[in-house]
């Protein structure tokens, strides 16, 4: 209104008045532009740090982030919808590809949900082998994280060690299931096959190698002062914020919440037969998240060792009909996957395929905290925080 009451503009005609206002506005804009202006940096969708196609829109003031927001969906493949046009046994080959580094772990909760609807339980041997493969895929997944962490922070060597040692685990998974990345091995009522001969001894050797790998990473990377100064106190998530944003997995446990679905729920897997520790860390910073994952990898190798010792004999497949029709009903099963809580809400109308499947994947919820977490950090810390939150794009976009 000040412009309209301006003595100069009052004397001008209507049309001229408008152009006068426009020129005043242009001057005001110019004044704003002469001050230091922020810069919007698009990190992604194609960027080396997002290992996939996540896009982070960051508003920068110098190197400091004023405001940041993740933008996902660049790799959305519509798995929830695709499951509706598949039969139940076919779905596993799809959901394998959600978290592609720990594929077998994706199959288990879906199969468990379907079994719950059908009121079938897998024989004990199948449950144990499922648990072993579940933990092996956790090791394969998290060991790659431990190496990749170094690359994100600028140390190029650890990732090669990680790829070297992950190969042993993938070979094990391949020899048991036939697929390195996408086993597609879990069936409703049990497993496709029994373990091959000599697999148990071989696995024990590999678990020893993986424990060595964890020691190696701990001294190489976690003991490094630069690594500690880059991660300690960076991206701190307090306990209550972590709970509010629905974080799960190691991200939640690093904030001091003692919550692990392997221990805290009764599902037909063999976790209640083994003795293992759930690691937590009070700090909630990037270092804590990485440290918890390292300890979990170690713990997983111990779980596998214990399971291998007490594996029961018997069939690996329960009696299920050749053509599987799941009775009408709804079921929710979630498990503690490598990335966090992963669950399937399966709705069946008594057909060959599911009527609707809701997939709750861990990374989608874990990444939702980034706008809160990235405010005020520096650009290099964006990478540290994203690396330590550990998401997999397939797990975000599904």
């Amino acid at each position, binding site marked *: 209104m000040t412009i309209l009451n301006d003595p100069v503009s009052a004397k001008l005609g209507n049309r001229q008045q408008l152009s006068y206002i426009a020129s005043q506005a242009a001057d005001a804009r110019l004044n704003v532009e002469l001050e230091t202006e922020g*810069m919007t*940096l*698009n990190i992604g969708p194609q*960027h*080396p*740090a997002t290992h996939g196609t996540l896009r982070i829109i960051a508003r920068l003031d110098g*190197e400091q982030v004023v405001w940041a927001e993740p933008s996902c969906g660049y790799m959305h493949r519509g798995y929830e919808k695709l499951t509706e046009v598949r039969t139940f046994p076919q779905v596993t080959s799809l959901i394998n590809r959600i978290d592609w580094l720990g594929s077998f772990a994706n199959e288990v909760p879906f199969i468990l949900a379907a079994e719950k609807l059908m009121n079938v339980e897998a024989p004990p041997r199948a449950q144990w082998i499922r648990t072993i493969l579940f933990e092996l895929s956790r090791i394969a997944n998290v060991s790659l994280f431990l190496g990749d962490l*170094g*690359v*994100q*922070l*600028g*140390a*190029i*060597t650890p990732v*090669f*060690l990680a790829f*070297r040692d992950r190969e042993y685990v993938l070979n094990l998974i391949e020899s048991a299931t036939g697929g390195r990345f996408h086993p597609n091995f879990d069936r409703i009522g049990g497993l496709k096959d029994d373990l091959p001969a000599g697999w148990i001894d071989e696995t024990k050797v590999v678990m020893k190698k993986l424990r060595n790998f964890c020691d190696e990473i701990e001294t190489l*990377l976690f003991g*490094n002062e*630069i*690594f500690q*100064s*880059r991660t300690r106190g960076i991206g701190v998530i307090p306990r209550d914020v972590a709970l509010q944003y629905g974080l799960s997995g190691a991200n939640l446990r690093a904030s001091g919440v003692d919550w692990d679905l392997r221990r805290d729920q009764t599902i037909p897997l063999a976790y209640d037969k083994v003795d293992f520790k759930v690691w937590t860390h009070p700090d909630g910073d990037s270092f804590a998240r990485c440290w918890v994952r390292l300890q979990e990898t170690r713990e997983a190798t111990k779980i596998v060792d214990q399971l291998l010792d007490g594996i029961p004999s018997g069939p690996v497949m329960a009696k299920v009909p050749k053509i599987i029709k799941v009775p009408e009903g709804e079921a929710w099963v979630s498990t503690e996957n490598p990335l966090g809580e992963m669950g399937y809400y399966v709705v069946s109308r008594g057909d060959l395929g599911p009527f609707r499947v809701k997939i709750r994947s861990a990374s989608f919820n874990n990444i939702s905290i980034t706008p809160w977490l990235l405010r005020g950090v*520096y*650009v*290099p*810390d*964006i*990478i540290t925080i994203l690396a330590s939150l550990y998401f997999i794009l397939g797990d975000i976009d599904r």
Partner: protein
Amino acid sequence: MNTLFAAVIPYWGQSLLRVLGGLVAVLLPAGTIVYLFLFKMMSFMQSRLGPMEAGPYGSLQLVAEVGKWLQKEDIQPTNADKPVFKMAPIIVLMSTFLLVVVVPFGPDAWFTDLETGIFYALAVSSISVLGILMAGWSSANKYSLLGGLRAAGQLIAYELPMVLAVMGVVIQAGTMNLQQIVVAQNAGSMFGIDTFGNPYVITQFVGFIVFMIAIQAELTQAPFDMPIAESELVSGYMTEYSGFRFLIFFIGEFATAGVFAMIASTLFLGGWGVPFSWFGWTSMDSVANWMNVVGPLVVFTKMMVLTFLIMWVRFTYPRFREDQLQRFAWKVLIPVSLANIMLTAVLKVVF
């Protein structure tokens, strides 16, 4: 190349020899470093083999890579400031060539014998900052801009500890002439023992460490590689460069590593010389002529040892954050090197 050849070779011939010698002195070490350290040593450290197909043990890999880069399309971003964009890599490489001219390779084998040699070397080494800033600014890319600005801040911060680290050597030798610094190290004696001469790496150990850290930062090698920071800034100021221009940056990076290592070996390891007492030489005049041939090899060997250290650190450490790097330069390196200068000066006066 001075008194020995002056009578026989005309001036234009001497100039031609100098240009050829400069090319060899910069590009040969660069190629060797890339193959031996970047391709092979790094691979062995990371439990892999590295290039094995091109030539025996992949020794011709670099030739293949250069061939590939030369064939690439010359891409310039639409919004780039084109003349600046084209000039930037040349300026970066030029600073390397300007740097090598003061390095002595033998009693008579040098390009130019400046009285203020090390002063000149430190001055021209900062020209590369200009090139990097130009590259970062003219690319019209936000990552390049961030990388260029980071590089400028970092290189300026680390110039200071580098100069201060050299001061100790200059005080101890009493000269800025690199040739005389070499003679002072090889003809001198340490604590009364003259078997090993007096390499300043022992008496100026603190200066040596500070200098090596500073050149690590100056070369933007990990843990100081934020200007490139491939996981954050894609490739920093080099993001928009491809083909031949990228090749110049790439060669420049390793050539500069080699030349800085040559200067470090001249300052701290005795340069081209071996301890003079081994052959009964007493001063510069009595050094045998064959040292002009052996000298370059000695420099090369010492350079490879120092480059090995640089590369070893590069392949091992994660990188600092920008503010941590500045804090490290101003709060640690500069006070340490100032204390070193003070101590050296006091000891020089006392003894």
